[in-house]
């Protein structure tokens, strides 16, 4: 029976000599069954190690399904100078495509094109697939059976994410009711009968100024912006 320190040191050594993140399962698997710590014990060890390294040049982090040691962000410049490393840059087109896939997965190329308003270049998809950030996730059951794409654990690992939910929420999209009111158009939504909506369509600009600046306490609006961010979060999940 190994003692606690030995187990902890073994875990540290394993993580430190691994090029890829190690999962709890990986870590438990390296012990003889009778020596293996429980998942709870292992989590406690990992927490302890994480705090042991706190404030040092390297840190222990949890990404995707595993743990890895990595250098702290603030020393990247010095490290690049030392190694003469040139970080790869990615075009806006590629990042936009990747962002759409990440937030809306699974999506087809058509979905991406719909949002970006421009064709997705084969080069971009090739880079995303080659880097292993994106992979096929089946086909959509519509004529033509377009391929669906989603992000991978490699994507999470590369962008230092634990899960896709860790991405910041999408910027608030003003909900349709609000847009409609500002544009002075009538939406087929009979749920609330505020006088606001039935006003004549005279001075668009003034109306939108008013509604933007005055607190909207007087209007009963069932659809709040919370709802739209909520649904965005749902879509990510």
């Amino acid at each position, binding site marked *: 029976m190994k003692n606690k320190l030995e187990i902890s040191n073994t875990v540290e050594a394993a993580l430190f000599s691994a090029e*890829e993140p190690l999962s709890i399962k990986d870590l438990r698997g390296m012990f003889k069954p009778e020596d293996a710590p429980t998942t709870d014990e292992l989590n406690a060890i990992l927490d302890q190690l994480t705090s042991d390294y706190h404030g040092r040049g390297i840190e222990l982090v949890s990404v995707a399904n595993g743990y890895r040691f990595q250098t702290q962000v603030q020393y990247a410049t010095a490290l690049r100078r030392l190694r003469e490393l040139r970080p790869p840059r990615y075009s806006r087109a590629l990042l936009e495509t990747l962002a759409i896939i990440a937030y809306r997965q699974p999506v087809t190329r058509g979905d991406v094109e719909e949002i970006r308003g421009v064709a997705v270049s084969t080069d971009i998809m090739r880079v995303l697939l080659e880097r292993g950030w994106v992979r*096929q996730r089946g086909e959509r059951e519509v004529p033509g059976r377009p391929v669906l794409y989603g992000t991978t654990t490699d994507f999470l690992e590369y962008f230092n994410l634990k899960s896709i939910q860790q991405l910041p929420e999408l910027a608030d999209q003003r909900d349709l009711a609000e847009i409609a009111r500002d544009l002075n158009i009538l939406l087929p939504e009979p749920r609330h009968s505020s006088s606001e909506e039935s006003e004549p369509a005279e001075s668009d600009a003034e109306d939108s100024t008013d509604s933007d600046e005055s607190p909207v306490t007087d209007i009963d609006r069932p659809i709040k912006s919370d709802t739209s961010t909520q649904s965005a979060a749902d879509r990510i999940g």
Partner: protein
Amino acid sequence: MTEQPGQSTADPKQSERSPVLVAGEALQSWPEDLYIPPDALEVILDAFQGPLDLLLYLIRKQNIDILDIPVAEITRQYMEYVELMRRLHLDLAAEYLVMAAMLAEIKSRMLLPRPEVEDEDGEDPRAVLVRRLQEYERFRSAAEQLDSRPRLERDLYIAYARIDDPDPPKIESLVDLDDLVEAMKAAMLSAHRRKHLQLVPETLSVRDRMGRIMERVRSGEYVDLKEFFDPDEGRMGLVVSFIAVLELVRDGVLIIIQNDPGAPIHVKSKDR
């Protein structure tokens, strides 16, 4: 970060105080800032990520609220840019012209008297455009946020101590397309030599072959690429195998490995 069009975004609310901004009447003149030195222009125009991006740029440049687009004016400016792009022989994607048509349609629909009834046609024709612009904008900023996240190869490096292994696993080096083509050629040649033996060829499906290759590499072992080149299948079979391998690699489920230049090429399932 490089300079990008559309960055001069001021708070749209602020601008509402200026008389220029009130839609329609109070507008005195549009800023005549379309002139940009020609060589700079080319860079700028090339930087647009499509019609929505260009439109957002035009809208932001003038501090117009996205919800209150003066369609006629924006359409005119949009067309000027498109015309410029064409004159500069930039690769003008068809999407730009589609958007031009959409803008023209909105413009013409807005000239028509608005129907009194609440039918679907009564919807402001700008609404669809606004929705698309907003949706695009959300992902444009999401992309910026993604780009600014700490990431490997730029802000973070994996810290690990290498273990010297006397019997190291095969190094996964990138295989040149040339080497692949060489392998293909060699297989083709040997197929050619047996051509006279060839019988009625079966129809071969790339998809089917892809499945068979994946089945073969499922265990995670390295498999010699040559295994998939069965000279008995003739030229057609080789081509099908070759395409199947390329497809699988492109899909990211198969990796091709060669230890040294000229060494045998192996394939392996990508799954760890």
